[in-house]
């Protein structure tokens, strides 16, 4: 994290301005996971996170090229409820703003 003290509300811009993740030629993503609406699914195209978190996300199934589906968004700007493969998980919006997506589709 470049600025760990940054208030969470700024995380979106922070996520975008971060250098691309090592190990892959990531372009600045057009859409972020945090912007997905309930019922939509998309493909992950970039993960702009520190290595520790990247490992954790990968272990939970979130890696580039993986489809994710957004089941619901929590109240009061709460976390996102996602399905990734056979796993369901929650992810804070701040953190979801570091994940770039494309191929957005409505899955009902």
């Amino acid at each position, binding site marked *: 994290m470049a600025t760990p003290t940054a208030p969470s509300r700024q995380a979106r811009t922070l996520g975008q301005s971060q250098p691309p993740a090592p190990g892959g030629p990531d372009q600045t993503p057009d859409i972020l996971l945090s912007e997905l609406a309930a019922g939509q699914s998309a493909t992950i195209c970039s993960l702009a996170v520190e290595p520790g978190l990247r490992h954790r996300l990968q272990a939970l199934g979130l890696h580039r090229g993986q489809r994710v589906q957004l089941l619901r968004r929590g*109240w009061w700007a709460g976390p996102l409820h996602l399905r990734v493969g056979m796993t369901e*998980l929650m*992810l*804070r919006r701040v953190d979801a703003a570091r994940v770039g997506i494309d191929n957005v589709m409505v899955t009902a």
Partner: protein
Amino acid sequence: MSSSTACRPATIAVLGMPNTGKSTLFNKLTGSHAHIGNWPGLTVDLMQASLELAGRSAQLIDLPGIYDLRGHSDDEAVVRRFLAATAIDLVVVILNASQLDRQLRLALQVQELGLPTVVLLNMADEAKRFGVTIDLPALSEQLGLPVLLVSAKYGRGLGEARQAIRKALDPGPLQPEGGGAQASLAATQAPGPVASGAPSSTDAAQSLEQRLALVDGDLPQRMAAILAATVQLPPQWRDRLTRRLDRVLLHPVLGLPLFFATMLLMFQGIYAIGVPLQGLLSSWLSQFGQGVLAPLLAGWGLPAFVQGFLMEGLYQGIGTVSAFLPVIFLFFLAMGVVEDSGYLSRAAYLMDALMERLGLDGRSFVLCLMGFGCNVPAILGTRVMRSTGLRLLTMLVIPFSLCSARLNVFLFMAAAFFSPSQGALVIFALYLMSFAAAIFTALLFQGRFAAQEALVLELPPYRLPTPTQILTRAWAEVRHFWFWARRFIIIGVVAVWLLNNLPLGVPPASAQTLSGQLGHLLHPLLAPTGIDPTLTVALVFGFIAKEIVLGGLAVIYGQADTSLLGQAMAAQVSWPQAVSFMLFTLLYVPCLSTVAVIRSESKRLDFTLFTIGWSLVLAWTVSTVFFQFSRLVGWH
């Protein structure tokens, strides 16, 4: 070394991602009672038990869940340290069969350890229900390891698993000569003779890191290829139950009210069933004491002082606390169901928005809920957090969770001072107070422990515990309470009784006794809270453990039957004084064990002293405010 074979017991490590059923399997194979729950990160420390495998004895070690062999949270570090420092004969990798699409990763990483390995795909029942099919022989061939499908919870496939483990332990032709099957992380990579001592753990961990980084590059491709060849996922998600339940329980508006309503209902149920049971048991114990034990002691012609000590001290003190065993049992039955259902993760989801604004996260809330059982495991549970600030702040608020030991004191006092319907409300209000204290504390101190940690948490499918599972759990808690708490209670009760009756010759429990003197010494401090010198002694001993408070009261007021004890107390204490006492008991230091575990987990003496100081300040302030307010309003 007591086994019939010549070799020492083999060391078998159970490794896997969180919530895959490692502890369930461990319990099934060894008959132990490791804590199980549908919550990733329940086990945070090593647990060991012996296992007899067709003539070969072994030590099975249940490890905390690990997402990644490079994980850096404290619970994962426990695993890494263990792997680096222990000579392991066999690794049993547990993967959730229905989530093989992501968990296979860990099996591939474990392969890098170069240790004999058996892969168990657990939760076969769920994989089947969700429509996941796995080509076992193909998977086994691709990995070059034995792979078995089991269901630890329902005991399926465990016989075969034992055989596979036994077989893998045998030093076969594949094993290097000499050392048998034994290998440790350091030994497998360092050429040349293996040092007899434990390898330097940092070295071993570091080189593991390097090797893992090396395989990391082609790991995704390998994994994808294996999955494509061996695992078939359903075209559509099949867990209709979870989907339907979540639609209601995670509802943006209804979710939280439903959660609290469920909790309220649970506590009301425990109250409605547990309190009458407790009353019955306590009057029975008291009758037994007076009808059988007292005449027996009198018949022996023991001195009055000794008789009093045995009856009014030991018997009444222990009896009063024992009468609460049914409540404890009921309480942990309910806790067991909640913990195993998967609702805890949902609670984390629902509360995270609020917790985030308090500098905490959803997991902190769940740990506070676990603290309702006992604060000690809840504080250990903070190991899943990587950020120190978040961990400390969570440890600061957990002790305000109204644990089962405090619940006993409150159930008793509520019954003594209020009607049954009022009593239930008082208990509920104390639970609210417990939340309020935690929230207030977090609000006040979040700036000092500010921390940002990403939160990703699995929401496992809803599960129903088997009756055996929750009965064993509740029974284990009762046993633990009985064996563990009894020591403290005996010491505490004896001390309270002695303080109340010494020096010899003064009227018991009078101002001239030691306890009277202690009470008067602290009186200037506690007078504003309305807690009288008699009750003060109970509070002083409550510092050691809250079980002593109740036993101490029984000794102080000379009654074991809780209804008589209540009457005796109510004759001397007004109800606002009683409430003030309850508030103090709720908020100040829960017990010495909690203090000790805060010290060992935070590794900071100043922080530990700070938690003690803050809880005392808060307890005193809240009690004083309440008591002075009640005087102003004229409730006396």
